[in-house]
């Protein structure tokens, strides 16, 4: 007997399995989800842009013969000792505490071999990182954990952190299980308690105060160090303009795909703007002030390939910064630890509970046994290799566009695959000369 055709079970787009699982988890625990990393949702990104390459009117450079420069100077506006890097790709600030000491060492090793800088994070400067970093940027954060004038003077540049892309307007929380005696000692707090990183600076508010704060830091360091100001991707035009007005040498702009050690998932996914949407307003602010290329712009948040680097530079950045990708290069989320990721209820590539300190790869942990799995020398070499590949890829594209320096890449070299990306990047939609929003169209 023939069966009556049945309606197939149909899941809801709105109430997906993932959404329902989160509702059940919230109902069971009463606590929001905290995780590391940046926004995981699909947002317009560099993947939505393409380079046009050479043509009759644009001739390319020979790939294996003609030079394509990659060096960048950061902080020449006011600092007596600007930073000179061989490549326009820096390592973003990541804290000791969130990362192990050997992981910080590996970042320093890799960056130094590649000819670029690394950056401290909340929790102060470690000897591992200072000792292995030729060029080290010292973050000046709201918590001021570990802040002292000696380290300020040992740094090569100072980065005042106003916000970060994963959580513009948010602070942080390093959970007690990662607070060893060493971490606690550097932060002047007891072992084992949750350590709150404040969301705003304790001794200034607003751009006028920031100008005076920058003056103080310059006076303490003899006007030698470049002063960076790091902003989250919230209001990139105005924040960039205000940072320049306050006296920044360099603006670091972090979009919502930029990672964090730990914050509420709802914050990461719902506050801030995509990196792609932030770059052109920031560049516009610099241009409006006559400061483009005078105050350098470093863009971070979702940089993975040399193509991403090239696209950010073409849109007007002077350099990019990588965090999450650098951790992956060190060995984070490596499938070789899949069995252990499974035990933690996750899988390689999706592990983001960095705050819990149980990282199988031994990177985002303070557990001595897990840390033994991590070899900072080998990891540093991998990071160096990865940075080399990013640079080579970027050069490959730049040469194809006929550029003898990667900074010569420009918006005119790009088109967009979607209307959204075209509007954000202010480049034409592929196959048209239409830039959404330009001239009121």
């Amino acid at each position, binding site marked *: 007997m023939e069966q009556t055709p049945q309606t197939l079970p149909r899941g809801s787009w709105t109430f997906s399995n993932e959404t329902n699982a989160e509702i059940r988890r919230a109902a069971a*625990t009463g606590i929001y989800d905290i995780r590391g990393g940046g926004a995981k949702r699909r947002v317009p990104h560099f993947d939505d842009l393409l380079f046009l390459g050479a043509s009759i009117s644009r001739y390319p450079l020979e790939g294996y013969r003609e030079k394509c420069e990659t060096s960048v100077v950061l902080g020449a506006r006011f600092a007596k000792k600007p930073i000179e890097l061989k490549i326009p790709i820096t390592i973003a600030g990541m804290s000791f505490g969130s990362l192990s000491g050997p992981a910080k060492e590996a970042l320093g090793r890799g960056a130094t071999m590649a000819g670029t800088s690394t950056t401290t994070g909340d929790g102060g400067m470690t000897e591992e990182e200072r000792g292995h970093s030729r060029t080290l940027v010292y973050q000046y954060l709201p918590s*001021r954990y570990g802040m002292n004038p000696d380290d300020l003077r040992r740094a090569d540049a100072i980065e005042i952190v106003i916000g970060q892309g994963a959580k513009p307007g948010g602070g942080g929380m390093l959970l007690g299980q990662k607070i060893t005696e060493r971490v606690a000692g550097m932060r*002047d*707090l007891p072992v084992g*308690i949750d350590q709150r990183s*404040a969301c705003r600076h*304790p*001794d200034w508010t607003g751009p006028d105060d920031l100008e005076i*704060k920058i003056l103080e830091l310059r*006076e303490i360091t003899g006007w030698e160090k470049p002063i960076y100001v790091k902003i989250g991707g919230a209001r990139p035009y105005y924040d960039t303009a205000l940072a320049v007005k306050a006296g920044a040498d360099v603006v670091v702009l972090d979009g919502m795909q930029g990672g964090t050690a730990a914050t509420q998932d709802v914050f990461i996914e719902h506050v801030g703007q995509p990196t792609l949407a932030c770059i052109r307003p920031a560049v516009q602010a610099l241009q409006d002030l006559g400061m483009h290329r005078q105050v350098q712009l470093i863009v971070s948040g979702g940089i993975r390939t040399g193509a991403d680097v090239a696209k950010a530079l073409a849109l007007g950045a002077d350099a990019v910064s990588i965090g999450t990708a650098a951790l992956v290069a060190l060995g984070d989320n490596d499938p070789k630890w899949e069995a252990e990721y499974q035990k933690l209820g996750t899988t390689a590539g999706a592990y983001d509970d960095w705050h819990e300190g149980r990282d199988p790869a031994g990177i985002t942990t303070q557990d001595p046994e897990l840390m033994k799995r991590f070899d900072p020398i080998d990891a540093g070499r991998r990071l160096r290799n990865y940075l080399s590949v990013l640079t080579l890829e970027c050069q490959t594209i730049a040469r194809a566009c006929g550029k003898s320096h990667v900074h010569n890449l420009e918006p005119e070299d790009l088109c967009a695959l979607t209307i959204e990306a075209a509007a954000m990047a202010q480049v034409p939609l592929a196959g048209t000369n239409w830039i959404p929003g330009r001239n009121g169209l």
Partner: protein
Amino acid sequence: MKTAELADAEPETSGVQTIDMARTELRQVNATLQAQNAAANQRKWTIENPRGSHAMAVGLDAPIEVTVKGSTGYYCAGMNKQATVHVEGSAGPGLAENMMSGTVIVEGDASQYAGATGHGGLLVIKGNASSRCGISMKGIDIVVHGNVGHMSAFMAQKGNLVVLGDAGDALGDSLYEARLFVRGSVKSLGADCIEKEMRPEHLEILKSLLERAGAAARPEEFRRYGSARKLYNFHVDHAGEY
């Protein structure tokens, strides 16, 4: 006047070297003071006509004495180490911020965030201190002869805050291990801040601080406040506390 000229100048008969900010740029003033070290002969400095300058006498790292003849702007004596800085007027926001060691004394009042994030040393304010005095302090000792404003000792981690007068709203909000001593009234306590028993060891600490700060008060007149330590580890049931 160039820095070298300042450093090489003959000391006055009093043994005090004088810098006049009406004629000397801030950079030269700070560079001169920062160039001093423990071996320097010139230990006493006077700064005249400060005219509310910001970032004055910052980043010092020598056992010298600096007297400022007037009021200062933001961040006077910021990140001080070893030096004694004496302001004979009032001080703007961020006085002695992130001080590591040494002594800073202000004869008048201090604006917001005095002693913010200080790691060590002694800060004495003989007048009143505005809001957020001792915010996020990490080991500094602060003695305020007058009153302190709201949110003082917010997220204070270590050290001692002594207030001879009254404290404003939300004293010690989200406090960690800093000790707070108040002689007058407290308008309100912040989240997780409670009054605690004054034990003999606290009276000893207080006695020493009052003596060092030249404060005419008896330790027995004070009440002690500290952290209830309920917010040290996040728990959803405490979410309503803040």
